[in-house]
């Protein structure tokens, strides 16, 4: 029973990271209809930047620079590479984000090499005692970040003008354009928000495993989380992230690590066979 809680706890932490990555992917998909495979790579760049800048110029400077850099990279990706693809078939956008991811990965390998960089300690090291379990502070903070992020997004999408404009864009690009919304601005804004979400995830990933250019593969594992929850649902992203994270660490703990890598994808196949649009995804009626 102790191990069960232990595995679940690490699963919850992993799930929180997946959930934040998934949120970024969902926000981009909702407004631009592009699935961003490079989200994990954005996060990897953020971790590496923080890890290299913080020891020299202080933690705050590292934070500011990596926030600015991730947001800027995300904005540039949208502006330079995905904007020309509007109106192209789906596979173009798919391959574009995949190859951007590889480009970022290769760039990181070129700049930082294969070394493992130590992430600055942002969280206090003392643990919280709850009954006979020890809980790291990061886990609590990850929960707070998810809760805060989730409520901010709900408020943003429901109440603010910009949020409403983004929802309208998600519904139909042409209609919202003719209602006076600058769709291209919405695209840029959603990519920047996703870049910021990448930074938030990078804080927890950095304190979990440090900075390495292969961190980006975590983004690959967040893909089942997005689809289990539904591609265009924010609630789904959070719940899907937790489902995948907990399942992965339970299977890794009880059965084997190799199986833990595959189980999210098997769950994904089963869920999609039963509910083709994910658990919370919007079911669209197609017309010719």
């Amino acid at each position: 029973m102790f191990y069960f809680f232990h595995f679940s706890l690490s699963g919850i932490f992993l799930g929180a990271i997946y959930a934040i990555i998934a949120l970024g992917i969902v926000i981009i998909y909702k407004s631009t209809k592009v699935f961003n495979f490079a989200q994990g790579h954005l996060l990897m760049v953020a971790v590496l930047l923080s890890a290299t800048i913080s020891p020299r110029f202080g933690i705050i400077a590292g934070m500011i620079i990596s926030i600015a850099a991730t947001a800027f990279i995300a904005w540039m990706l949208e502006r330079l590479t995905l904007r020309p693809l509007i109106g192209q078939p789906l596979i173009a956008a798919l391959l574009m984000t995949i190859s951007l991811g590889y480009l970022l990965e290769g760039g990181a390998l070129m700049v930082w090499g294969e070394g493992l960089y130590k992430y600055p300690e942002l969280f206090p090291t003392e643990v919280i005692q709850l009954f006979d379990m020890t809980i790291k502070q990061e886990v609590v903070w990850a929960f707070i970040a998810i809760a805060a992020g989730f409520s901010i997004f709900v408020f943003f999408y429901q109440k603010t003008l910009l949020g409403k404009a983004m929802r309208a864009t998600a519904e139909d690009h042409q209609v919202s354009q003719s209602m006076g919304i600058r769709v291209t601005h919405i695209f840029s804004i959603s990519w920047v928000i996703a870049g910021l979400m990448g930074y938030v995830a990078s804080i927890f990933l950095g304190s979990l495993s440090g900075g390495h250019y292969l961190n980006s593969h975590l983004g690959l594992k967040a893909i089942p989380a997005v689809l289990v929850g539904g591609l265009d649902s924010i609630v789904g992203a959070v719940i899907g992230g937790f489902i995948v994270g907990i399942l992965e660490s339970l299977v890794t703990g009880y059965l084997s690590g190799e199986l833990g890598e595959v189980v999210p994808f098997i769950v994904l196949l089963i869920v999609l066979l039963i509910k083709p649009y994910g658990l919370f995804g919007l079911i669209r009626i197609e017309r010719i």
Partner: protein
Amino acid sequence: MVRPAGIFDVRYEQDIAVVRTIPQWITLGIFLLLLILLPQIFPNRYLLNVINTIMIVVISIHGLNILTGFAGQISAGHAAFMGVGAYACASLMIFGGLSYWVSLPLSGLAAGLVGILFGLPSLRLKGFYLAITTIAAQFIIISFFLHFKPQIFGGAQGLSLQSIRLGSIIFNTQVNLYYLIMPIAVIMTYFAQNIIRSRMGRAFVAIRDNDLAAEIMGINLFGYKLRAFFIGCFFAGIAGSLYIAFMRLIRPDQYSLMDSIWMLGIIIIGGMGSILGGILGVIFVKLLNEFILMVLTPSLSIILPREVASRISASMGLVAFGLVVVLFLILEPRGLAHRWEILKGRFRHWPFTYGH
């Protein structure tokens, strides 16, 4: 294709012909003769090695082109289906005791059946959802080979095989392998070109362009999507079994996600929905790869200090893939085949400028 003014098809046979004119027949004949005589003209092991690899990948790419380029079902797990063919062929030979010539078509069938299995979600899923289930297929298949019964499949070390024999001929040199792979590649190209102009090929194109409209026109959507998966993975399986004859070694990491993505990149570079485009794409990518390996990396290590050079050459594969695909998607989304058509049009119409 734009023809000079005044040249029309007057019979149905003319309209559907692939090779239209007598000069084209002669060119085709010369090309095939060159293919047959190539090892005699250039008895260079390195060159033949490159050509053999190109032809194996071309077979696989034809499958992906039919599945993704013509039927519109994005498959990001094509390398895994190649792996299914390779492992099926190796298992049939090692454990089934069958000869290579029997297990080659059987492995194509096996890959096709696994393709149908992972194509089943395509009835209900489309777009990104389907693309990602094929990524799931990639992960599941490869981890199956990696972790299921290491005493059979050999885990990460994989399996090694003996050279393929036919009577007294042993396929262990590049020249002999060339004569094994080349006829199959030609036959598979012939099949691919003819599948897409059959009733089935037209159904695929209709499904790609608008699947709902296609269904209303009376195309059995599910049946044709599964057929597309079967054919695409059949080609991949054949390519996979040729690859083990070529490598005499089979490991799960030869069929990684990166390879699947490369294959999607190749059909973008070559031109989606064009058999010629697939061939051009493979040649372009293979030449780029050889250029990086043979020219760029050695010259970098001369110019730059050793540590920087090794770092750059380690990341070169990723960066080259990213850059090439990004540039093609932005500048020429219709690929090399489209450029080739434009070039042909220029020659055909010269000195007039219409038609391009």
